[in-house]
Structure formats: structure tokens, C-alpha cells
């Protein structure tokens, strides 16, 4: 009994020490908690979601009978093209594209009407000057919409001509308007998700998961590496302390800290930024605890392999960078090759983001295996850290 009580005292000494150390530097804690929230808040206020249409010039050859009104072309891809000018000087327009004065250049074929009437497909040249892969894809999309609309216009004109001809020769034709022939179907869209997609709502839980993971990793890694390098480990080796007591004490401290941070950031997300929490607070706390448990393991692993505080910080930043790229924070995990997805799922935050987004925005966790994955990652890292720490505490070689 005495041993159990002493063990609890030792564990609580680590918990108390860790909490005191963190609370003694409120600035660090505040920047970790409020920093990301502030960034999200500014992002939410400043981000409109509006993408400016491409500044476009149309080159229509002199002898072409194609329209020369900019609005005509603008209407073919509404919201995508801002047609600045319709010109016949292809070289000058090309130069403006290379100079960055315009985003998109559309060159109409020389003899579109003749080619068409003679049964040949004509080619519209579309050029852009983009290094941003997102804008590169958007320009391609705008081009597809433009070509589809143009084709529909041509089909509509041909249909109108055909109907007039048929009525003259054969009497009344079927009552099908040419625009229906050109565009026989149209889509009506509906998103059945329980919440309206919104940038803040979608990224809020992701930022939250990232903050929690980063907080747990950084604090644990630095705390343990400092103890290793300062010679404090020698004190632990001499004292009747076990690696289990040390680890549990630290885990409890950071679990308490993470819950406090989660409560503050959660309230700010839901209360101030209006991110929905459809799934309730209790499962939310559970996910937070699992994410913290797994993240602490990563931090401990870093602290046991890092040779200096600088290396611990560098490794923590690398995990953060990997998390931003692979966790589904920016790009969906499914977009990656299979082997890369394994790497993504080795990161606690990947599961944290998936679970929190589903829980908060859908009100249910469909990917329940992610809960088991988080617990598994945490357990494996805990056991690994425990074994490594046991060796470290046994003696310095």
C-alpha cells in the first residue's frame, strides 16, 4: 500500500511540475492557443471565397463573321471570364499574355463557318500563363466551359436553321425548341450534408486538431529533451523513480493541459466563429483525449531521439509540415498514392481532422476505425517510449 501511495506521489510530482512550468510561461501557452484562433479569425473575416474571373482577350480574325462584342463571350462562361477586349491582332494579344497583362488568350479559328459547313472540326486555341497549379486547373475548367457553351451555341444555331428549313419544305416540324435540342438536359443541385459547406466550418476542426497535436508534441519533446540534456535524468536514475511513473505523470499533465486548451479553442470555434458542433461535447472530449494521447507519443519519441532542443524543435516542425501536407488539412488524403496514404494515416492529426470534421459538421463519426487507429498509434508509441525510457533511466552508457 505504501508503495502505491508513494508511486502516486511521484507521478503527481511530474504532473504538477509540468503544469507549473507551462503556466509559468503564459505567453507561450497563449500564443499556442490564441495564435491559431486569431489567424483563423482574421482568415474568416478576410476570406470571401470569391475567385476573380480570368482577364481574357479574344482574337477574332479580320475576315471572320464571329461576334466582336466582349459580353457575348463573357456570357458563354459566366463568372469565369472577364473579357477585356476582342481584337484581331494576335501577336499583340500574345505579348500581353506573356507580360501578365491578361490571364487568358482565346484565338478563334480563321474560317470557322466555312470549316464547319464543310464538315470539319475547327480548333479554338486557348493559352494561359500560370505557375499556380490551382489556377492552372481553373483555367482549363474555364476553357472547357467556354468550349461546351460555344458548341451548344453552334448546335442551337444549326438546329434553328434545320427547323426553319424543315418547316419550309415539310410543313410544321416537331415542337422542340432549338435550345432544348442544343442543351437537352440541365442539372439541379442539392447538398444533403447537415451543414452548409463553409471555409471556416471546414477548416476550423482541422486547425483545432493541428493545434492540439502540435501543442502536445512540442511541449513533451522539449520537456523531456531538456531533462535529458540538463543532467536531470541522473537525478531520476538515482531516485527511486520508475519510467512508468515518469511517463504517466507527464501524460496526465499534458492531458489536463490539452483538455483546457481544447475547451478554450472549442468554445471560441463554436461560440465566436460559429463552427457547428452537431455531435455533442462528450464524444468531442473523447476524440480530443485520443488525439492528445497519440500526439504525446510522437512528442516523446522525438524527445528520446533528439540530441538537442534545436533538433527537437526541428523534428516537431517537420511533423507539423508533414501534417499540413498529408493529413487532409489542405488536400484530401484520397488524392495521394496508396503508399503515401499509409504515411498520412501514421500521423495522429490525419485521424483527428477526419474525426473532428465528421463529428462537428455531420454529427456522427462514420469512420469509426479512426478512433481505433488513434488509440493504436498512442499505445504503440507509449509502449515504445516506455521501453526506450527504461533503458535511458537504467543508466547512461
Amino acid at each position, binding site marked *: 500500500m505504501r508503495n502505491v501511495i508513494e508511486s502516486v506521489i511521484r507521478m503527481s510530482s511530474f504532473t504538477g511540475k509540468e503544469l507549473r512550468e507551462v503556466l509559468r510561461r503564459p505567453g507561450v501557452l497563449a500564443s499556442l492557443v490564441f495564435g491559431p484562433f486569431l489567424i483563423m479569425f482574421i482568415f474568416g473575416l478576410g476570406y470571401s471565397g470569391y475567385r476573380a474571373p480570368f482577364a481574357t482577350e479574344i482574337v477574332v480574325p479580320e475576315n471572320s463573321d464571329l461576334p466582336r462584342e466582349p459580353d457575348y463571350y463573357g456570357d458563354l462562361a459566366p463568372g469565369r471570364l472577364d473579357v477585356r477586349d476582342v481584337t484581331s491582332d494576335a501577336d499583340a494579344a500574345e505579348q500581353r499574355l506573356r507580360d501578365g497583362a491578361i490571364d487568358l488568350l482565346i484565338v478563334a479559328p480563321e474560317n470557322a463557318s466555312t470549316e464547319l459547313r464543310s464538315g470539319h472540326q475547327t480548333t479554338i486555341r486557348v493559352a494561359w500563363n500560370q505557375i499556380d497549379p490551382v489556377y492552372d486547373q481553373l483555367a482549363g475548367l474555364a476553357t472547357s466551359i467556354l468550349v461546351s457553351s460555344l458548341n451548344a451555341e453552334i448546335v442551337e444555331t444549326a438546329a434553328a436553321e434545320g427547323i426553319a428549313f424543315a418547316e419550309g419544305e415539310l410543313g410544321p416540324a416537331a415542337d422542340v425548341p432549338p435550345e432544348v435540342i442544343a442543351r437537352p438536359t440541365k442539372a439541379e443541385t442539392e447538398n444533403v450534408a447537415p451543414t452548409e459547406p463553409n471555409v471556416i466550418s471546414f477548416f476550423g476542426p482541422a486547425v483545432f486538431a493541428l493545434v492540439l497535436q502540435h501543442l502536445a508534441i512540442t511541449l513533451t519533446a522539449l520537456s523531456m529533451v531538456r531533462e535529458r540534456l540538463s*543532467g536531470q535524468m*541522473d537525478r531520476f536514475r538515482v531516485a527511486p523513480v520508475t519510467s512508468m511513473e515518469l511517463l504517466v505523470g507527464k501524460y496526465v499533465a499534458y492531458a489536463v493541459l490539452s483538455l483546457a486548451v481544447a475547451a478554450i479553442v472549442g468554445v471560441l470555434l463554436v461560440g465566436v466563429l460559429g463552427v457547428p458542433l452537431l455531435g455533442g461535447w462528450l464524444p468531442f472530449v473523447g476524440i480530443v483525449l485520443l488525439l492528445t494521447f497519440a500526439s504525446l507519443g510522437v512528442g516523446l519519441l522525438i524527445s528520446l531521439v533528439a540530441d538537442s532542443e534545436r533538433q527537437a524543435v526541428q523534428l516537431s516542425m517537420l511533423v507539423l509540415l508533414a501534417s499540413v501536407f498529408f493529413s487532409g488539412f489542405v488536400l484530401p488524403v484520397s488524392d495521394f498514392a496508396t503508399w503515401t496514404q499509409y504515411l498520412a494515416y501514421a500521423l495522429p492529426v490525419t485521424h483527428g481532422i477526419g474525426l473532428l470534421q465528421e463529428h462537428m459538421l455531420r454529427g456522427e463519426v462514420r469512420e469509426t476505425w479512426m478512433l481505433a487507429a488513434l488509440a493504436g498509434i498512442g499505445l504503440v508509441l507509449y509502449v515504445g517510449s516506455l521501453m526506450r525510457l527504461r533503458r535511458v533511466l537504467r*543508466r547512461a552508457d
Partner: protein
Amino acid sequence: MRFATRIACARWSAAARQAEQALVRLAGTPLALGWRVTAQTPVRATPAGEPIIAASGLSRAFDDRIAVDDLTFEVQPGTILGVVGPSGSGKTTTIRMLTGTLGRTSGEINVLGEDPMHFRRRTRRRIAYMPQLFSLYEDLSAQENVGFVAALYGIGPFRRRRLIRRALEVVDLWDARHKLARDLSGGMQRRLELACALVHGPEVLFVDEPTAGIDPLLRQSIWDELRRLRDEGRTLVVTTQYVAEAEYCDQVALIVDGALVAHDTPEALRQMVFGGDVLEINTARAVDPEMLASVAGVESVRQTAPRQLMATVADAATLTTTIIDTLRSAGVDVVGIEEHQPTFDEVFTGLVEQRRAASDNGGDRSQPRSVTADA
């Protein structure tokens, strides 16, 4: 009679100190003669004559570099063993092996009846280690740091409060208990480390360089503290690079290049180097040193100034009068005569030179100079 009085006083003081130490050991209980009592746990009696720490053939190599080479020594309970040597001589490696925080390449160690690599929990409660570098938490207050270490030893919050106060009072840090460790001066941080090592009332303390980088006044106060702990019956192994601090120890192990050069009491080491007591004789006029060389009991005489002689004698107390009489009978007035206490720097230099000479003459380098280890 001025010089005779000084000699008498010095001798009385040394004898009193030795008697007091002997009493402490004989009684086997803490003896606090007017000092503050800080023992939190009773110091267990060790069978008479049994060393509390014993190392035999202790060696440690880092890759192909030998840091500690074949050390053999024992530490009796209730004494201070000073491990003295220059920086990088292997002191910290030795003390870390003794605490079990560093493995050894070869040799045997026994501390409190156990091998430090396999200390049981209850044995760990009886020892303490004060590392060389400040390793406490800068963001915690002095009180919180001591409390943390006390909790590592399983001391509950109520008892802890009392022990923290005692430990901080011992090192005169109670008034600074709320100060963060990072705001304490270097000396205060060392004292805080000492308070942390003391808080659970250990029987054996391993103290690594407690006075490194500290001003002389504070060094003195730290040694006062260590000696007071010794007087309570605790056993201390203290490393220091300040050779003069060997004076404060009961036993001194002088380590150079990882090897034990000498191991004995400070007084015995002095005698070992100089071959006896040294008398400083000041005369009214210049004297030929040969005049005293023939006096029985005088080992050697050398002239250190025109009217000053240094005589190495078997026993200063008995030969002082003889020397004065010899000089007076030769018509030389003695202005002053007193026992010269060679500094430990001189002793250290002498021992290292003797070792080198022995080594040059093909002597056994591994055998330390030693007389019977009796503090």
C-alpha cells in the same frame, strides 16, 4: 612565547577536531555540537570497520580512451571523501559510477552493501546525488524545486512541507523560497541543488563539484555545510577541482588522468610529500643551514631567505625547543619559529611530481601512495 602559544593553539584545535570526529564515529549517532540539527531520517549504524562505500579495480573507458583507470578505495561511514583532481581527470565519471548512473568497464563497487547498477528502491531512498551542472527547473521557485525532488522520494505533501523548510533553511535559502530558480545567483543555485539533495535525509551523499565557479566566501560556507552533514553521521563523496579544498575532507583521493595518485588523510598526504612537519625559523642574522642538519630528528633544512630557514622535522612539537636551544647556543637569536602548513597546492604538486618521478624510474604507476586510512 608568542610562537609557542600559536603552535599550542593550532595543535589544540586540530586535536579537538579529530576527537570530535572520533566521538561521532564511536557513538554512531549524529552529534550536533551547537549546530542546527537537520537529520530527517536516522542514520543507520554500519558494523564497525565496515566501509559504506568500496570500489575495487574500478575502470571506465569511452571508446578507446580510458577515463578512469583501476581505482581502489574505501569510504568509512560518517566521513567525507574528497575526490580531488584537475578538470577532466575522471572525478565525475567516478562519482557517476558510484551512483549507478554510469556503467563501468571493469571493477567492483559496493555502496550500502549493493552494486549501484542494481540498487533496490529502498537503497535509493538512502542516497542522494548532486550533479555538477545546475539541472533544476528554472521556471519553478526554489521551494517548488525542493518539493519536486522530495516527491520523487515519495514524501507526501504534509511531511514534505516541513522537510522543504528544513532543507532550505540549512542552505540559507528559506527567505528566497519564492524566487524562481532562474532568478537565483550562481551560488544560490548551487545551494538549491544541495537543498534538493538533502531534503529526503540521505545517509550517503554524492556531491559533484559543489563549489565550481563559486566565490571563495560561498565555497567556505558550502564546505561548512558539508562538514556539518558529516558531523551528523552522514557519509559524503565530494569531488572538487580546487586542490585546497582537500583540507576540508577526512580522506582525499587524488586523481590525475583517471588514476589514483594518492589516497589518505590530508595530514598524512602532507607528511608523505614533505617527509614530516615543516618548521619556519626566522633568525636575527643569516645562519648556515648545516648548523641544524646534525640535530637529531631534523630530516632536512633549506634556506628560503637570508634570515629564514625551513626545517623538515619528525615532530614539530618536541623539536621546536631543541632547535631554539641549538641556535641560541650558537649565538643566533630566534625571532620566530612556527609550524608551516604547506598549502594543498604544494602537496598536490609534490605528489604529482613524485608520481612522475616514480614513473620515470620505472616504478609502478598504478599503486597509489597511501598510509593507513584512518580519519
